[in-house]
């Protein structure tokens, strides 16, 4: 009996505790009546370099403002001068997201934040938030080298650039990508904030609050100094900013022994390079289709086309394929590789480099010819000039018989922004940059959120399933395949290969189609899943394979975000699949093959991948051996601790605590003050009344049997 009672009381206590815990976890229901949280927003964050800060900043407790949708010029006047309820939170229609509107709002004190609607309706003919002369201070052209070509004197590469990405905004700027969410905001605006017959709207008004407080300020030097101070003297040190960093991916047609660094004896190397990254105005948004993906796909398809021939009939020179990360931010990856080569900390050094071919933006060719850009200043050297002319001849002969033609700009022009410029800073290296533009870029949306599949003219017929779209060869895929064939054949000739083997080198349009689908439409497809390790393909919040195309922003790398950036991983595993061989190692042997005598960790990397999905929808994981490597892409400025360096990239990204947005109604100031007034009045009145009544209590509450006591 007693034990029953004891058990019952234990259960009661447990129930009590669960009840209490449950109430703690739920949010207040009043809060749910007030705020609508906006979950699908993309912020603009603060980036810093040696001298400036760019991007956006909000106050510590968020910026609040009355909503106003900017659809016409009169709306802009309302916001900036005539509206009676400043500060305003501006909802910017796509057509108005340009430099003049943003700068006018930057200089006004009546704007507390901007939310930009990202859509294709109303999109201008061109929009590039990048600068007109990308990377002009860290390229090769300066006062001492080609001064007449420096600072885009002869050719402005990105004339449509408005430089918005490099401005410093004192208010938060968010992007609204989800149509349903934008509709919610519009409805709130139409219900409460619309002007009726030109008169001002009445309270309560719809308002929005944006939180994106950035911890870093001024520039990288200041931020790093403050971080160092915190680390040395603080009890709980907080890092304020992180350098942009990730990894370059490289491979070679003949495997290189990574345990030997510095000059490689008897190795003459032809470098084939392209960039891996892009950026836009907003954080982690960079579809970069024409700017980056065209180059990646071309080089990957060229690797695939070249690989069997280089194994059968190896050319005298080694071909070194490399994908540089971080080129949008003052050439992070290429400057690091050149720095390592100069310090003899890499498998080869600059003396091993015979020549370099870089793939620039090659997607918007539209049946016209490709252009070979070269550096006129280095060509003043006879040897370099001779080699460059040889390269161009080889390219032309490789293009014979293909549906592509190549030409060289007839006038003296600088190199477009490219990794070759960093190599030229270190030494005279003959090189060419292949691009689809003769002078300025053909890309009207360079480094913006609109450089997507549509910009690259990738369209599929309707009513195709995702798997059918994966292998459908679009016109864009066919065009890129031809460019890849040209690149592969030129590289083979450049490496000293025989003319007779050239006809065997053809890029496979199916591979190009699959690459194009994976990089600009949907990365979560069956082909890419089969190439990646099994744990990556598992569904989950941190899965690399979320829906949609991959984003090419470099990010902060493994120091902050865990595993390697997704695009770097994809390229690494795709290269492993295209150039590797399947081995029959088990998973444990694959992770560490050092015990096996037949395997060589110095020459090859071993990848445990999911494998193709068989008919009964199960996949057998297998071990792939390939000579694909990663090399660190961190700016040398951070190794040398020269945070104010002018020679190397010094870009860092600020840290933040929370980034969110919400909408709600605000009441007028008069109502608030009225509430406060009534409250004070009630308090004073009750104090007076109580004092009065309690002092007269004897009189008021006298009765026969109630003895008044001294305890009043």
């Amino acid at each position, binding site marked *: 009996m007693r034990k029953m009672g004891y058990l019952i009381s234990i259960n009661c206590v447990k129930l009590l505790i669960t009840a209490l815990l449950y109430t703690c976890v739920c949010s207040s229901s009043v809060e749910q009546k007030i705020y609508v949280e906006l979950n699908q927003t993309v912020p603009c964050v603060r980036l810093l370099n040696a001298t400036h800060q760019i991007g956006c900043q909000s106050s510590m407790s968020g910026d609040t403002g009355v909503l106003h949708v900017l659809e016409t010029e009169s709306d802009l006047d309302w916001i900036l001068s005539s509206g009676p309820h400043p500060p305003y939170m501006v909802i910017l229609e796509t057509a108005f997201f340009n430099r003049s509107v943003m700068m006018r709002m930057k200089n006004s004190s009546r704007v507390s934040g901007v939310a930009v609607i990202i859509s294709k309706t109303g999109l201008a003919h061109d929009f590039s938030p990048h600068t007109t002369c990308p990377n002009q201070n860290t390229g090769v052209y300066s006062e001492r080298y080609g001064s007449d070509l420096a600072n885009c004197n002869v050719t402005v590469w990105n004339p449509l650039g408005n430089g918005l990405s490099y401005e410093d905004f004192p208010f938060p700027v968010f992007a609204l990508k989800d149509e349903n969410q934008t509709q919610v905001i519009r409805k709130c605006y139409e219900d409460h904030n619309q002007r009726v017959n030109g008169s001002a709207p009445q309270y*309560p008004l719809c308002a929005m609050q944006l939180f994106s407080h950035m911890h870093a300020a001024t520039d990288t030097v200041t931020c790093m100094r403050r971080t160092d101070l915190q680390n040395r003297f603080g009890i709980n040190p907080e890092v304020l900013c992180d350098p942009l960093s990730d990894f370059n991916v490289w491979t070679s047609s003949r495997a290189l022994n990574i345990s030997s660094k510095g000059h490689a004896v008897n190795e003459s190397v032809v470098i084939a390079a392209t960039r891996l990254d892009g950026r836009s105005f907003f954080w982690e948004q960079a579809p970069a289709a024409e700017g980056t993906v065209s180059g990646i796909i071309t080089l990957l398809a060229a690797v695939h086309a070249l690989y069997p021939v280089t194994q059968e009939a190896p050319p005298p020179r080694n071909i070194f394929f490399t994908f540089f990360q971080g080129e949008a931010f003052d050439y992070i990856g290429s400057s690091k590789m050149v720095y390592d080569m100069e310090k003899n900390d890499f498998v080869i050094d600059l003396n091993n480099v015979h020549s370099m071919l870089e793939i620039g933006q090659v997607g918007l060719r539209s049946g016209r010819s490709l252009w070979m850009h070269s550096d006129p200043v280095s060509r003043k050297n006879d040897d370099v000039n001779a080699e460059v002319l040889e390269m161009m001849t080889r390219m032309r002969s490789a293009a014979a018989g293909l549906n592509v033609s190549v030409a060289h700009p007839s006038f003296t022009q600088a190199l477009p922004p490219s990794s070759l410029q960093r190599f030229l800073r270190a030494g005279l290296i003959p090189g060419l940059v292949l691009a689809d533009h003769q002078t300025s870029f053909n890309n009207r949306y360079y480094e913006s959120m609109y450089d997507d599949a549509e910009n690259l003219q990738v369209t599929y017929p309707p009513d195709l399933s995702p798997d059918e779209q994966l292998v459908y060869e679009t016109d864009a895929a066919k065009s890129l395949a031809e460019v890849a064939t040209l690149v592969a054949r030129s590289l083979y000739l450049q490496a000293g290969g025989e003319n007779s083997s050239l006809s065997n080198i053809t890029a496979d349009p199916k591979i190009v189609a699959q690459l194009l689908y994976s990089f600009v439409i949907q990365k979560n497809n069956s082909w890419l899943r089969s190439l990646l390790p099994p744990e990556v393909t598992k569904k989950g919040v941190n899965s690399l394979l979320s829906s949609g195309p991959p984003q090419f922003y470099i990010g902060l790398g493994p120091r902050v975000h865990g595993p390697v950036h997704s695009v770097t991983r994809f390229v690494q595993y795709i290269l492993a699949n295209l150039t590797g061989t399947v081995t029959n190692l088990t998973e444990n042997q694959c992770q560490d093959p050092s015990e096996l005598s037949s395997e060589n960790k110095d020459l090859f990397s071993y990848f445990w991948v999911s494998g193709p999905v068989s008919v009964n929808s199960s996949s057998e994981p297998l071990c792939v051996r390939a000579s694909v490597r990663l090399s660190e892409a961190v700016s040398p400025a951070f190794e040398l601790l020269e945070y104010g360096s002018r020679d190397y990239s010094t870009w860092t990204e600020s840290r933040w605590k929370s980034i969110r947005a919400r*909408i709600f109604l605000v009441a007028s100031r008069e109502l*608030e003050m009225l509430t406060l007034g009534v409250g004070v009045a*009630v308090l004073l009145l009750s104090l007076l009344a109580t004092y009065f009544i309690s002092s007269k209590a004897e009189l008021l509450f006298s009765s026969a049997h109630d003895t008044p006591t001294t305890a009043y």
Partner: protein
Amino acid sequence: MTLAVFFGCAFIAFGPAFALFVFTIARDPLRVIILIAGAFFWLLSLLLSSLVWFIAIKASNSQDLTLQKGLLIFGVFFSVLLQEVFRFAYYRLLRKATEGLAAISDDDGSAISVRQMAYVAGLGFGIMSGAFSMINILSDSLGPGTVGIFGDSQYYFITAALMTLALTLLHTFWGVVFFEGCEKSQWWVIAAVVSLHLLFAGLSLLNPLYEGSLPPVYFITLTMGIWAFFSSGGSLHSLSALCTRRKAEGESS
């Protein structure tokens, strides 16, 4: 809705309770003890009734909204009944205590009369009940937004504060009347108190016409105030005596 609204609503809801505490309770430690014990009894009743409601919620289908609303109404009324039961229980406890207090006091009687205990107990119930009604709402009033984006009234905070004010005063008056009824074994008084409390709870459920519940609630408060005044020994005679005394003092000075 910012700091102004926070302080305004806090003053409205807790101003009278604060004034009553400062001028009538704070000086006497015995009254403070009875106040806090009363608050604790109210808290116990809330805990038990919310347990019952919680179990009912967990045992039912969470998707059925009418059922949930019905359970909420049931929970509210059950809580009211349980509060009155605990008020009665507190009355019995205090009755037992008076004998012990009389034994230890210096005078020949108890240091505190039943009427004073009734008032203090009622105030204790009122303060704790007001706190639980208002604190959550106060913390939400600190943010920049006000209620209304889903169509509710924007005067929610002020209305909630005024209801809490009424609730605190009502609990005080009910305490006085209830204890008096128990003393004189007038069970109709207790029934009246319980039914008025149920009526108040029902009025507070009148969403979205929340402001519409204010006039009837204040009418009830006024009525209860007058009843409590007469029940605790006041009379029209003492009121007129007050006025004449003041008039006499005014004339003499």
